[in-house]
């Protein structure tokens, strides 16, 4: 073989690069297909076992997927499910929204002023550690059975992780960066704006993720204990009337809601603080 010219060598290199890229792409595709095959097979097996077992026991105790699907259809077409979902999401939104609006500014003041820290830290930690379900009867006594009571219960479930995370975010700002800001002439307000607040963002997002999970728990509990409304009440009323298939419907909806909202807040965290995701992976 004669010595190849540079152009030929280049072309060969390019070919190899392309071939390599193609190989990697195919390998990725194969592993994606494998993952989804296993997932679907696992789901099919689960549904199969459920169907078989659910049909063979007393319908008061359990329901097979086919019956649940039928109940789903009925509850959607008569509007019950949609109505309950709107009721639930309304109180969920009010409670969580209020928690965000209250917790973030309060946490910043808490982080900034030592006096506030001394004054409130004990209560916040104590309330965060308290199983809040224990307070629900008391809250009903104070605020009644209506929307207000529900929103307050959800608020209390959601507010503490947001409060504590935001506080820690503002507190754990890198001292070196505060110094950078000062060296360029930042006074206190500018230092907060350029350094403290942005570095707290990933903590706030993580707090929001926790708060959403807890707010969902609060929502169901509130609907169990207060006036008849929402998905929680749907579970309760189906259970009281032994309509097990109907009981599964709101449970599955709440499950889907949880998966969706937690995924949403995780995506949000990645979007607002790509740098902290990067550190986490390193």
């Amino acid at each position, binding site marked *: 073989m004669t010595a190849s010219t540079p152009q030929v060598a280049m072309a060969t290199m390019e070919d190899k690069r392309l071939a390599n890229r193609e190989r990697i792409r195919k390998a990725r595709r194969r592993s994606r297909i494998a993952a989804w095959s296993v997932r679907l097979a696992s789901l099919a097996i689960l549904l199969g076992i459920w169907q078989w077992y659910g049909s063979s026991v007393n319908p008061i105790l359990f329901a097979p997927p086919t019956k649940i699907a039928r109940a789903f259809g009925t509850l959607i077409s008569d509007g019950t499910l949609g109505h309950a979902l709107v009721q639930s999401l309304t109180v969920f939104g009010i409670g969580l929204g209020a928690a965000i609006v209250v917790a973030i500014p309060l946490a910043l003041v808490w982080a900034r002023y030592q006096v506030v820290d001394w004054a409130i830290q004990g209560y916040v930690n104590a309330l965060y550690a308290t199983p809040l379900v224990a307070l629900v009867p008391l809250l009903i006594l104070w605020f009644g059975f209506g929307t207000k009571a529900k929103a307050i219960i959800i608020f209390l479930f959601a507010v503490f992780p947001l409060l504590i995370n935001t506080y820690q975010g503002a507190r754990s700002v890198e001292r070196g960066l505060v110094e*950078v800001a000062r*060296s*360029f*002439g930042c006074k206190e307000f500018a230092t907060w704006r*350029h350094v403290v607040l*942005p*570095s707290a963002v990933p903590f706030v997002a993580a707090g929001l993720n926790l708060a959403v999970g807890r707010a969902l728990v609060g929502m169901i509990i509130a609907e169990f204990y207060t006036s008849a409304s929402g998905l929680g009440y749907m579970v309760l009323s189906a259970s009281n009337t032994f309509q097990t298939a109907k009981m599964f419907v709101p449970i599955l909806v709440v499950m889907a809601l949880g998966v969706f909202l937690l995924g949403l807040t995780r995506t949000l965290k990645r979007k607002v603080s790509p*740098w902290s995701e990067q*550190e986490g992976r390193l």
Partner: protein
Amino acid sequence: MASAAASVERAAAAHAASVECRHVEKWFGELNVLADVDFSIPAGSFVSVLGPSGCGKTTLMRAIGGLVGIDDGEILVGGRRVDGPPAEAAIVFQQFGLMPWKTIYDNVAFGLKVRGASSSELEERVRHYIDLVHLTGFEKSYPYQVSGGMQQRVGLARALAVEPQLLLMDEPFASVDAMTREVLHDELLGIWERDRRTVVFITHSIDEAIVLSDQIFVMSRSPATVVEQIPVEIPRPRRERTVRGLPQFAELREHCWDLLERGGAEEAARS
């Protein structure tokens, strides 16, 4: 000696500030960090402060930059007593000190924004200094997406963008690899030789100090004080590889090394 003074005089420029330390003393509790540090740096001069790790040279730089107070004596920048970060100064930090949530463009713009530059001026200057440190095309990247050497270029551009009369550099190239460091030395030489701002460059590398400086202040182990002010009479423009080949380089290196050894600083980097 005479020619060093002459080169310093030639370098003095209107956009450069002098630095004076008068009997500066600093304590951390019981520990005497700086003892009677006394020197003056003429405007437009490039001075390296050379000393073993942990000898207090960073503390000295932070004191000049107004980030820590001193316990006795006084520091003057541009003839004015330092009390908080002086508006004439900008710092290049050892660990870069970039805001991870800001793009490279916004990091470079940071100092200007804080100091209230108008938006048209800001844009023009940021572009200019990003170009000067060869970061054009990376404006929208985030610091974590680029190498350590490039991150320190951002740090340098951010400091230069405020067009400081005094540039304080705290071991800026200590955490980049050796090859990148050499490239950055040459770039810094090129930038500095054009506009001759006053530079105080903290380092524990003898070679780095010789390559870059007009004068080297050798510091003793703590309590730190300036043992000797060594003029570096190597003509400019300089490039690291050429400087390293000069006989003066070897002589200066030996001399610095002797001084540091006498100060009990055997572990100072012989890099």
